[in-house]
C-alpha cells in the first residue's frame, strides 16, 4: 500500500509542477489572474508531496518489502538498517526520486520565504523551477518508476554493492544532489530575471545564498567522495580523474565562478550578463553530471544504471533545458546592460580573471571527460587520465591560485598596484623560499608537486592578508568566510602536493610475527584471524605500528567477502598522525603462509580533506554573514520607511502654515 501512496503522491506533485508552470506563465501577462496566485502554494504543496513520496520509498526499504521491484533488486533483509535506508538512494530510481525531492523542497522554500524580488520575477522563477521539475517527474514516472511492484514477491533481495555499504557513501549522493539542486534554483532565478529583464544587484543578493549553499554541498560531496575512494578502494588513491568524479567537479568549478561573479553583481552591479551565463552553465554542468552518471554512458563503480533508453531521455531533457536557456539568453542578452565599469587593477578585474580561468579549467575537464566518449562513438578508444589533466589543468590553475592571493587585497573599482607592493613581495618570497627548500630536501621532485607546495605555502599566508590592519572583531562574517575558504584551498593543495611528492609505499609478504619498516614505523603482523559481520565474513589482520620507543598502535585491516551479492572488498586501516597517515591493507595468503601486506606512509595527506572542510566552513560563514547583513539592511530600510511615513503624516497634520518643517 505504501508504494502505491508514494506513486500517487509523485503523480500529484507532477500535476502541481504543471500548475506552477502555467500559473507563473500567466502571471507574466496578467499578474492579477486567479491562476497566478496559485504559483507559490503549488510549489509548497509540491514540496510536501515529493517529500511524502520519498518517505514512502524509505519505508518500503526499511521494512524490506520484497514485492517492490527496486527493494528486491537492491536490498537484503540481513543488511544493517542504515544501509537499508541508504540503499533507497544507492540505485538509479531512488536517487532520481531523491533529486526530485530535494528540488521540490528547494522550490517550496523559495516560494515560502523569498519576498525580496518583484513578484513577477518570482513567478517566472517558480515557473522555471516547475518546468525543470516537470522533466524529472516525467523521467521518473515514465521510465524509472521506483515503486514498481513485482508480480510475485521474491523470497530474498539481491543486496547492495558492498563498496556502497559504507557510511561515507550513504551520505555522499544526498550531499551532491543538494549541491546540484541548489544550482537548479540559481538557474531558475537566472531564467526568471532574464524573462522579466530584472538582472539587478538585488537579484544577485537573492541568488547568492543558493549558489553558496550549493557550492558548500558540492564541496562537501566531493571531499567526502574523495575520502571514500581513498580508504575504501584500498590503494591509497584519492582522485582518479574518473568521469564520475569529473561529473561532480565540473558543477563545482562553474559554481565557484558563479559565486564570485554573483558577488561582483551584488556589491558593484557589474558583470550582469556574465553572471546569468554562469548561472545557466552551472546548472547545465549539474545536468550533464547527472546524465553522465545516470545514463550508463560510462561504466564505473558509481554508474549503476546501464540502460540506453534512460540515457536518451536525460539527453533530451538536457537539450530542452540547456538549449532553451541558452536561446533565452541569446534573445535577451542585448537588453541586459553591462552594468558598472571598472579598471583592470581592481577587485572586479581580479574576479573577472579568476572567472575566465575557472571557465577554462572547466573547459579542460569537460573536454577530457567527453572526448573519449566522442571518439568511442567512432570506434576509436582513447583514455584521458592524470598525465593529461594534471599538466593541462595546471596551466590555468596556477594563475588562478596566484590571482587568489592578490585579488582580495585589491579595492573595488580601481586600485593602484603600488599600494600592494609589500604583500606581493611577501607572497613571492614565500613561494621562492619554499621551492628552494623543497628542491634541497628532495631533488627528484616533480614540477607539479613542487609548484603545488610552493604556491600552497604562499597562498596559505596570503589568504590571511585581507585581515591585516583591520580590527579583527569588526571584520564581517562574510570576509572571514572568504579568508577561511581561500586558506582551505591552500591547505588542500599542500596536502595534495605533499601526498604526491613524499608518499612511501611498501608491498611485502609477512609471516605472522614478522616485522617490516616504513616511514619511521616498525610494523609487525601479529596475526590474522577470521571475523564475521552481518552480511560478510573477513580475514582480519592485527598489525601493530610503533615509532621509536613510542606506544604501539594497532591497525586491523580486513579482506572482506560479502555473500549478497558475492564480492570481495578490502577494508583498509588508517593510523592518523598530525604529520600524515599510515595506510594498511591486507591481501591474500601465499602458499608459504605469509600474508601480503600493502603499506603506505602518506605525509600530510589528511590536509586534502581538512582543506575541503575549511572551504565548506568558509562557505557557511559567508552564507550566515550575508543573510544577517541582509536582514539588518531590510530592517533598517523598513524603519526608515516607517519614519518617512510618520514624517509625512505629521506634515499632513501640521498642514501648510508651518512650512518650516520642510527645512527640517
Amino acid at each position: 500500500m505504501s508504494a502505491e501512496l508514494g506513486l500517487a503522491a509523485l503523480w500529484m506533485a507532477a500535476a502541481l509542477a504543471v500548475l506552477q508552470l502555467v500559473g507563473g506563465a500567466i502571471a507574466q501577462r496578467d499578474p492579477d489572474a486567479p491562476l497566478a496566485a496559485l504559483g507559490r502554494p503549488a510549489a509548497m504543496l509540491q514540496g510536501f508531496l515529493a517529500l511524502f513520496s520519498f518517505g514512502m520509498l524509505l519505508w518500503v526499504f526499511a521494512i524490506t518489502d520484497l514485492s517492490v521491484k527496486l527493494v528486491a533488486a537492491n536490498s537484503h533483509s540481513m543488511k544493517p538498517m542504515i544501509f537499508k535506508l541508504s540503499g533507497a538512494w544507492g540505485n538509479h530510481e531512488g536517487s532520481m526520486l531523491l533529486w526530485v525531492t530535494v528540488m521540490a523542497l528547494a522550490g517550496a522554500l523559495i516560494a515560502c520565504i523569498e519576498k525580496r524580488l518583484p513578484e513577477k520575477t518570482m513567478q517566472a522563477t517558480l515557473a522555471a523551477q516547475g518546468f525543470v521539475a516537470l522533466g524529472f517527474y516525467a523521467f521518473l514516472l515514465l521510465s524509472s518508476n521506483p515503486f514498481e511492484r513485482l508480480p510475485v514477491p521474491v523470497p530474498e533481495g539481491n543486496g547492495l554493492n558492498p563498496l556502497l555499504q559504507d557510511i561515507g557513501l550513504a551520505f555522499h549522493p544526498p550531499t551532491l544532489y543538494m549541491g546540484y539542486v541548489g544550482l537548479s534554483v540559481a538557474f531558475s532565478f537566472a531564467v526568471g530575471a532574464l524573462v522579466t529583464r530584472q538582472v539587478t544587484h538585488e537579484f544577485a543578493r537573492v541568488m547568492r545564498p543558493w549558489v553558496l549553499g550549493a557550492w558548500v554541498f558540492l564541496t562537501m560531496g566531493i571531499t567526502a567522495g574523495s575520502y571514500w575512494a581513498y580508504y575504501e578502494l584500498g590503494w591509497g588513491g584519492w582522485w582518479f580523474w574518473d568521469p564520475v568524479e569529473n561529473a561532480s567537479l565540473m558543477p563545482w568549478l562553474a559554481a565557484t565562478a558563479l559565486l564570485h561573479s554573483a558577488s561582483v553583481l551584488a556589491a558593484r552591479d557589474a558583470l550582469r550578463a556574465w553572471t546569468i551565463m554562469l548561472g545557466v552553465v552551472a546548472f547545465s554542468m549539474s545536468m550533464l553530471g547527472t546524465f553522465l552518471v545516470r545514463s550508463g554512458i560510462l561504466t564505473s563503480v558509481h554508474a549503476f544504471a546501464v540502460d540506453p533508453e534512460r540515457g536518451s531521455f536525460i539527453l533530451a531533457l538536457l537539450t530542452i533545458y540547456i538549449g532553451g536557456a541558452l536561446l533565452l539568453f541569446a534573445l535577451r542578452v542585448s537588453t541586459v546592460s553591462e552594468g558598472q565599469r571598472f579598471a583592470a587593477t581592481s577587485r572586479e578585474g581580479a574576479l573577472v580573471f579568476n572567472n575566465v580561468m575557472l571557465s577554462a579549467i572547466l573547459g579542460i575537464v569537460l573536454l577530457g571527460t567527453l572526448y573519449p566518449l566522442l571518439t568511442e562513438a567512432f570506434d576509436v578508444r582513447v583514455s584521458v587520465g592524470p598525465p593529461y589533466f594534471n599538466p593541462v589543468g595546471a596551466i590555468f590553475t596556477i594563475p588562478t591560485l596566484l590571482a587568489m592571493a592578490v585579488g582580495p587585497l585589491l579595492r573595488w573599482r580601481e586600485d593602484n598596484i603600488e599600494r600592494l607592493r609589500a604583500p606581493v613581495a611577501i607572497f613571492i618570497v614565500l613561494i621562492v623560499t619554499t621551492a628552494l627548500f623543497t628542491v634541497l630536501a628532495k631533488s627528484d621532485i616533480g614540477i607539479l608537486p613542487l609548484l603545488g607546495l610552493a604556491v600552497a605555502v604562499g597562498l596559505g599566508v596570503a589568504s590571511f592578508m585581507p585581515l591585516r590592519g583591520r580590527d579583527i572583531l569588526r571584520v564581517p562574517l562574510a570576509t572571514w568566510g572568504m579568508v577561511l575558504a581561500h586558506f582551505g584551498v591552500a591547505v588542500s593543495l599542500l596536502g595534495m602536493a605533499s601526498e604526491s611528492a613524499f608518499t612511501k609505499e611498501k608491498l611485502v609478504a609477512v609471516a605472522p610475527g614478522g616485522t617490516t619498516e616504513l616511514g619511521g614505523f616498525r610494523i609487525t603482523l601479529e596475526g590474522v584471524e577470521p571475523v564475521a559481520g552481518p552480511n560478510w565474513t573477513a580475514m582480519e589482520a592485527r598489525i601493530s605500528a610503533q615509532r621509536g620507543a613510542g606506544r604501539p598502535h594497532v591497525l586491523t585491516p580486513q579482506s572482506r567477502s560479502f555473500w549478497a551479492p558475492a564480492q570481495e572488498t578490502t577494508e583498509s586501516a588508517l593510523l592518523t598522525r598530525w604529520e600524515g597517515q599510515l595506510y594498511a591493507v591486507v591481501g591474500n595468503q601465499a602458499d608459504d603462509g605469509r600474508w601480503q601486506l600493502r603499506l603506505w606512509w602518506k605525509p600530510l595527506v589528511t590536509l586534502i580533506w581538512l582543506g575541503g572542510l575549511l572551504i565548506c566552513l568558509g562557505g557557511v560563514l559567508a552564507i550566515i554573514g550575508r543573510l544577517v547583513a541582509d536582514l539588518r539592511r531590510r530592517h533598517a530600510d523598513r524603519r526608515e520607511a516607517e519614519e518617512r511615513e510618520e514624517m509625512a503624516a505629521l506634515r499632513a497634520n501640521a498642514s501648510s502654515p508651518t512650512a518650516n518643517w520642510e527645512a527640517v
Partner: protein
Amino acid sequence: MRALALFLAAMLAMPLAAQDTLPPAPYAYQQLEDPAQEAKAMELMHTLRCLKCQSQSIADSDAPMAGDMRHQVRTRIAAGEDPEAVRQWLVDRYGDYVSYEPRMTASTWPLFAIPLLLLLVAGAILWKRIGRRSEGGAGELFEEADV
C-alpha cells in the same frame, strides 16, 4: 606449420584463460629491489589503464589482469627498458586505450588544440574586458560610471 600456429595461439591465449586460477604473477604484489627502478615503474603504472576494471589504473586495482600487467611493467623496467618503451609495447599490444596519456594522433589532436584555443580565448576575453579599459585610465572610468 599449422601445429605451430595453433601452439602459438594457445600460448597467447593462455595468460587470459589462466589468470583467474593461477596465483598472481610474482611482481604483481612485489616491489623491485632498486628504489629508483620501482619509482619509475610506479609512475608508469599510474598512467596505464586496467583494461578489465572501470576507470582505474593498474596501480589501483586488485583485478588479476592489473596484477599481470604490473608484473609485466616491473620485469621490463628491471630488465632496463625505458618506461616509454614499455608503454609503447603495451600500446602495440592493447591499443591506445591502455595508456592514460593520450598521444597526438589524427583522432586525438583536438585534445591538444582545444586547450591552446582556450588559452587564446581566455587571453582575448581578458584583453577585451579589462586590458583595453585600463588604457583609458581613470578619466574614462569616471565618465562612464557617472552616466
